[in-house]
């Protein structure tokens, strides 16, 4: 490919994902010139922090600030385990994962539905074929651990990305459990009740922050469920560029569900003009499905995360909007 030949970047990223035909190597090169310096600086700062405070279970304002600026790749898995409390949960129940794998009779329906999704999880990742068996173990163990959820499509992407980052089945299991039960409970359960509620909350936030954008989206008749279901179900895995998703997840593990709303809202605010520029539903759907999730705004993960935190958003507001959404039956 011409673009790759003239680029210093490979057509596969550091996590094994193939860069698509439309990947903008020129922009990426420019972005990385600056970002590599940031990464080096963060790495040094984190080394110092981990030397002083290897515990990380208490999230001080300084630690929070560090996390928002990105956890360096080599530390990510362990830092996620500690800041989320998944590590502690694992220590309290050290045999859980092994005992789930040793269940004698797995539910066939669950196993079948997971098996259908295995080849359809990250087919564009060159290393992932070798991880499929481990992904099956994680999803199957979790489905049997939490029968209310079982297996929900979308968890394959979350668990898959956890596995890529941690390269460890058991850690992936505990982080998945944390996301599904503590960060976004009842998103993946059979009635998806909280997902529906939070889609309604998100719409209300768009009305409050960028009313013109909401009016336009509703004039075009594009439902929020079409736009944002996958954002919330997968917490942006298999939606945004990997590095951007990982930066978002850094903050999700430290600060919780509020971050998911920040990211979703930042998508709307940073793309306000693009959205307003679409004059029919098909163009708008294509913008959300294709362009917006891989353009320069979201590829520049550092600026995108900055945009997320320049938003005014308080937990109180979200909680009261959630109450209203439930009262209104979403």
């Amino acid at each position: 490919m011409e673009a790759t030949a003239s680029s210093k970047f490979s057509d596969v990223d550091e996590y094994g994902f193939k860069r698509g035909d439309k990947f903008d190597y020129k922009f990426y090169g420019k972005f990385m010139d600056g970002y590599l310096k940031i990464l080096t600086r963060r790495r040094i700062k984190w080394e110092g922090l981990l030397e002083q405070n290897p515990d990380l279970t208490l999230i001080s304002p300084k630690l929070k600030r560090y996390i928002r600026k990105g956890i360096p790749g080599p530390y990510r898995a362990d830092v996620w385990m500690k800041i989320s409390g998944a590590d502690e949960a694992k220590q309290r129940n050290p045999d859980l994962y092994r005992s789930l794998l040793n269940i004698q009779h797995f539910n066939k329906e669950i196993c079948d539905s997971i098996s259908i999704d295995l080849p359809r999880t990250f087919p564009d990742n060159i290393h992932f074929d070798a991880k499929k068996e481990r992904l099956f173990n994680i999803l199957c163990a979790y489905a049997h651990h939490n029968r209310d959820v079982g297996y929900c499509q979308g968890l394959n992407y979350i668990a898959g990305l956890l596995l890529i980052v941690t390269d460890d089945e058991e850690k992936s299991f505990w982080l998945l459990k944390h996301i599904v039960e503590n960060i976004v409970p009842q998103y993946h359960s059979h009635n998806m009740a909280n997902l529906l509620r939070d889609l309604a909350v998100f719409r209300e936030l768009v009305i409050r922050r960028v009313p013109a954008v909401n009016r336009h989206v509703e004039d075009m008749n594009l439902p929020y469920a079409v736009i944002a279901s996958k954002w919330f179900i997968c917490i942006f895995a298999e939606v945004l560029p990997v590095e951007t998703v990982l930066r978002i997840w850094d903050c999700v593990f430290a600060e919780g569900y509020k971050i998911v709303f920040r990211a979703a809202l930042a998508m709307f605010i940073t793309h306000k003009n693009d959205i307003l520029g679409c004059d029919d539903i098909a163009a708008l759907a294509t913008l959300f499905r294709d362009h917006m999730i891989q353009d320069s705004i979201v590829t520049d993960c550092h600026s995108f995360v900055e945009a997320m935190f320049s938003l005014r958003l308080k937990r109180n507001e979200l909680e009261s909007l959630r109450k209203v959404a439930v009262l209104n039956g979403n």
Partner: protein
Amino acid sequence: MGAREDEYDYLFKVVLIGDSGVGKSNLLSRFTRNEFNLESKSTIGVEFATRSIEVDGKTIKAQIWDTAGQERYRAITSAYYRGAVGALLVYDIAKHLTYENVERWLRELRDHADQNIVIMLVGNKSDLRHLRSVPTDEAKLFAERNGLSFIETSALDSTNVETAFQNILTEIYRIVSQKQIRDPPEGDVIRPSNVEPIDVKPTVTADVRKQCCQ
């Protein structure tokens, strides 16, 4: 996107339903973009795409909705069936269970879609001849008994994909255009200038619009 993407005589909403992994998304991409992805990914949430075709000199714009096959996703797809005038109920000819579940999907349509929705039963993956587990005759008979049209397709090698969509859209068009002649419009009518009025309610709903300067 075509230059005249916005000009059409009829807009029909068609939904793709059926078990997970039967090839709904690839049928959609084959029809709307002539693309097939061997490395396909599981669909999460709801997606849709559009394409316009000609029937009897009229431009019909099809808005085709696609969703995750897993049952729990019905929770977020309440809007999915609203206004749909056609449904492609897809199963995999090589996976018998996906065919057995067709009855469940028919119930789902009965419960949530308009009673006059046009349904086409689609046996996809017809290229997998050596793995076939649902005989064509059996499915055909089932379709006849249930008043559905029937076709076998392969999104992979393109067989019948175009025909399937053409047929269902034409069938919907015939019903809608006959209805216009039979029932004089009243009530909820979209009546742009310069075009014969068309009833969009109460049975087969269709959004009708025509640009005045063509």
